[in-house]
């Protein structure tokens, strides 16, 4: 490994004991032979690693717990919302004819729309494409714009593909 790679490892995995054993050995062999990288390692340790490892740890202030409880009591816990299964169970356990009928009606309408889309999809897509082209032509015809033909061509190809 070159000095640059060794120094990257000194800044990260080697110093933080994240490097695999084989990589660790390579770094150590390199350090044994390279005084510049040894100096680099010493500087990083002294300036960027050890000062933080010696950081003071503070106790949370005693008043923090009373602050937390005051905030909690000011706005009590709401009951947890029911999960999806719970909601379905409630629906089955308490049948509501009007709701059930309207659900069936919505499903029927939804099925009919899907079926229509499936059978008439290609026709509609074609109509949509035509409308889009017309809109583009109108836009370029009446708008104060410069037509970039290559962009227009790509647009048309995509619409008709």
């Amino acid at each position, binding site marked *: 490994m070159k000095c640059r790679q060794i120094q*990257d490892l000194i*800044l*990260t*995995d080697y110093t*933080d004991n*994240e490097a695999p054993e084989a990589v660790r050995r390579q770094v150590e062999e390199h350090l044994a032979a390279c005084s510049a990288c040894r100096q680099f390692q010493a*500087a*990083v340790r*002294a*300036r*960027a*690693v050890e*000062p*933080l*490892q*010696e*950081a*003071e*740890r*503070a*106790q*949370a*202030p005693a008043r*923090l*717990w009373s*602050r*937390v*409880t005051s*905030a*909690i009591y000011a706005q009590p*816990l709401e009951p*947890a919302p029911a999960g999806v299964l719970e909601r379905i169970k409630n629906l089955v356990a308490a049948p509501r004819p009007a709701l059930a009928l309207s659900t069936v009606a919505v499903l029927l309408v939804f099925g009919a729309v899907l079926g229509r889309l499936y059978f008439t999809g290609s026709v509609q897509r074609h109509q949509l494409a035509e409308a889009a082209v017309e809109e583009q032509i109108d836009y370029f015809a009446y708008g104060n714009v410069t037509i970039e033909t290559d962009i227009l061509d790509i647009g048309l190809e995509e619409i008709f593909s």
Partner: protein
Amino acid sequence: MLDIARATIEQAARGDIGAFEEIYRKTSGFVYNVAWRVTGNREDAEEIAQNVFVTVYRKLAGFRFEASLKTWLYRITVNLALNHVKKVSRARNVTVSYDDALAHPETGLEAAAASVQEPADRDRVERILEVLNPDQRACIVLRSIEGMSYQEIAQALNININTVRSRIKRARTTLSALQRKGIIEGVTS
């Protein structure tokens, strides 16, 4: 690892304040310290720690035990602390880029240091951490002060492990360069 029984977490999730206090007693130390080191301010840390525990109390019912409680707490704490730091930075309109500072060491480092306020009661670690951008600071706090592995940091911050590695590398490069120039207090050899 936290010594908190699953039953305690479940009781707290149902609103049992006694069970929640047990969680608080076992976790408030690291929550407060992480908030302090990321914000660099004890008063802000207290407010953030309060918000962390109120958030935890309200969301505990949704905790699914997929991650450890500690990882979840770290995530909430760091997110709230970073949001706070970024909001304060915007309010102060601090726009110094430390990456730019490193790219132009003759002028950029002094500009970066000049933006740093120096109240008398700040400890050395606060002064060191203040020169880092908030995302790098969070990673270096979790690694060098909290002793978390890169994988744990990645999970806590919900970022890629290589992003963790990159932020730690940049943070240490910045700290070494600034101390070499004597811009922040430290070893000057």
